[in-house]
Structure formats: structure tokens, C-alpha cells
């Protein structure tokens, strides 16, 4: 029996320039929950994700993963983390398959094909990523969600540039993930149809 995954942020104070993005923000997530960060453009949604990942430091506040304080070092979290940022790390010199193999070197070709079928890119196996559209590039990055075992997903605007069916498939994947005890934190401006997220609001 696996222990329940938890991610708790307490009393967080984030700043950009001289502006407070949030102050005294606390929330607590556990396995099976989807959290959605909402806020206007520039409210600090991506910054909050970057703080969780550890690339941005906070003025004040602490974050705990599975009960362990990881404010100083995110190593424990990073072991269990999949982060897809605003620019998703898709290399334009590589083909679609090579891009996936870089991040999922242990996956077999069948698994890669399955993941690409899920995001309807199975016909683009050998296509250089440079020739893909913005939405297709995002799908390449999102295909990693079908190849990963990591419990915590932090997704920055995962629905951007996706078409209606793409959004549906992704929502389904997120749903399947949280049912098995995962945590998903995402930012989006689009309405979610089948997900029932916890809301983290960043007021400006």
C-alpha cells in the first residue's frame, strides 16, 4: 500500500520586481486532486509553478512534499516530478520520436507509438519538430504524460494551442492520473469540462 502523496505550501510570499505576486498563500494538495491556479495575465501563475519546481525562490514561505520540508532543496520532489513549462523543451532539430526518446530513454518503441497515438501524432514519428505547428509541438511535449510514472505533474498552460479533441484527451489523461493517486497542478484560462479542480487563486 503506497502512502498518499501530499504537497503543502504554507504562507508563501512571492515577488517579482517590486510587485507582490502573492502573500500569505497556503494550500495543501493530496494524491487524487487536481489543482488549478487561476489569476489574470501576469498574476504569477507560472511563477508559482516555478517556485514549486525550485527555479524561482520565494521571499518567505515553505513547501513540504510527503510531509518533508523541501523549501531549501527540491531533490525529493524532483525525483517524483514531471514539469512541462511554457516553452516545453521540444528540440526543433529532432524528429518527434527523438524528442520523446530524449526524455523517456527506457520506453520501448511500442510505448512511444502508443503515446504518440494518444496525442494523434502517430503519423509524425519521423517528422522534424521544426515542421510542426505550435499545437503539435505542445502535443509532443504532452506525449510524455503517457510515458511517465511520476506522481506529481506541474503543467504550465497545457491546453494552449490544443484543439477540442486534444483538450478532451488531455483532460481524460489527467483524470486517469489522479485516480491512481497522482497530483496535478496546472494553469489555464480555458474552462475545464470533465475535471473538478481545487482552485488556487492569485489576486493581483
Amino acid at each position, binding site marked *: 500500500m503506497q502512502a498518499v502523496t501530499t504537497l503543502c505550501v504554507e504562507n508563501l510570499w512571492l515577488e517579482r520586481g517590486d510587485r507582490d505576486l502573492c502573500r500569505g498563500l497556503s494550500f495543501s494538495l493530496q494524491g487524487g486532486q487536481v489543482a488549478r491556479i487561476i489569476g489574470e495575465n501576469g498574476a504569477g501563475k507560472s511563477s508559482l509553478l516555478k517556485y514549486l519546481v525550485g527555479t524561482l525562490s520565494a521571499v518567505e514561505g515553505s513547501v513540504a512534499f510527503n510531509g518533508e520540508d523541501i523549501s531549501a532543496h527540491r531533490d525529493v520532489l524532483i525525483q517524483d516530478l514531471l514539469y512541462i513549462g511554457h516553452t516545453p523543451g*521540444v528540440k526543433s532539430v529532432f524528429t518527434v520520436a527523438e524528442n520523446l526518446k530524449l526524455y523517456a530513454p527506457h520506453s520501448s518503441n511500442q510505448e512511444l507509438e502508443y503515446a504518440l497515438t494518444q496525442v494523434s501524432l502517430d503519423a509524425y514519428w519521423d517528422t522534424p519538430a521544426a515542421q510542426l505547428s505550435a499545437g503539435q509541438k505542445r502535443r509532443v511535449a504532452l506525449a510524455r504524460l503517457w510515458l511517465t510514472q511520476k506522481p506529481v505533474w506541474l503543467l504550465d498552460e497545457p491546453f494552449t494551442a490544443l484543439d477540442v479533441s486534444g483538450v478532451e484527451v488531455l483532460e481524460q489523461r489527467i483524470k486517469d492520473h489522479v485516480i491512481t493517486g497522482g497530483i496535478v497542478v496546472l494553469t489555464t484560462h480555458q474552462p475545464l469540462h470533465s475535471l473538478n479542480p481545487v482552485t488556487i487563486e492569485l489576486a493581483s
Partner: protein
Amino acid sequence: MTLSSFFKAELLTLFRRKQSIFNALIFFVMVVTLFPLGVDPSPDFLAPAAGGIIWCAIALAILMSVESLFKEDYNDGSLEQWLVSGHSVSVLVLLKVFAQWLMVVIPLVLALPFLSKMLFLASELIPVMLVSVLVGSPALFLIGAIGAALTVSLRGGAVLMLLLILPLYIPVIIFATGAVRAAQLEMPFTGQLAILGAISLLALAISPLMAAISIKASVS
């Protein structure tokens, strides 16, 4: 992402982007070829100057190839993925620099004997030249990587990077040309080569750490 998949991907990237490496090599060959035409093509002048000409051209060619080392990774979000890969960023930097070094230095070393001959460098000095390049060039790549990491998030950071990095290239050039010159005068030259090696080892110890810190600062 594992270290071996990362290293393979780096080599593949360099292979797909061979145009930029080719540019650096062509630049190197052009400088060495044009120099005698511009100054003095006589063996009396060229033979003593050969070490200096070749080393300056090498330093500039390497500078060209490392200047935008992390630029593409920064733009496509790969640097962010480095930070969450669970690997030490220093190790990733080191692997990237090593891949770049392999792809640039191997063709450089292959071209070197011909260019040395063109500048009337005596045949018995060519091995000294080769050793000085093999021992000294890692320092140039590693120091360049710090500059590239520091300026990766800046627009038009190339000039700033040159200002930061060029002064640090000077000792390498001095000791490398010093070794070739000493060999020409039939004096002992192992001391200069040893210092070159020491500079490279020092850069090997410091540069990945510094570059990793710079990358972390640039990404956030």
C-alpha cells in the same frame, strides 16, 4: 532523461547543426590562409610566427562555436528541463561542453598538420602543436561555457560575453604559443604544456559549477 540519452542527444544536435561547426572551421582555415597574404609570405617570417597565428585563429574559432552554446536550449525550454531532470546541472554542462569539444577539436586537429605545413612550421614541431591544442583547448571551451551561461538570457549578449571571456583566454594563448616557440628554439617546452594542462584542469573543476549557477540564475 538519463545522462547517456542526454549525451547522445547533444551529439545528434551537433551533427544536425554541423553548419555552425563548419563555419567555425572555415573561419579558422581562412584566418590562417589569409594571414601570410596580408603580412609576409616568406618562410623566414612565417615559421617563427606559425604558432601564434594558428593559436589565435583557434581561440577565435572556439569562441565562435561556444558563444551561443546554451542559447537554443534556453529558447526552447530545455534548460528548464535540465533543472528538473534530477541530474546535477554541472554534469549536464560538462557533457554538453565535452560533446562540443569532440565535434570541434577533432576536425581542427585533422586540419592542423596541413595548415602548419603551409606556415612552414618544421615537421618535428607539429606534434608539439597538436599536444598544445589537445591540452589547451579544453580550457577555452570550459571558460567559454561560463560566459555563454552568464549571457544566455540577454539579448545581444555576444559582445558582453567576448569582453568577459577574452581576457581569460590570454594565459592559454601565451603558454600555448610559448610551448611551440620554445620547441622551435630547441629549449624545454614541457613546462609550458604542463601549465596549459593545469589551466585546463582548473577550468574543469570550476567551470561546470559556475556555469550551472549562471544557468539557474538565468532560467528563473
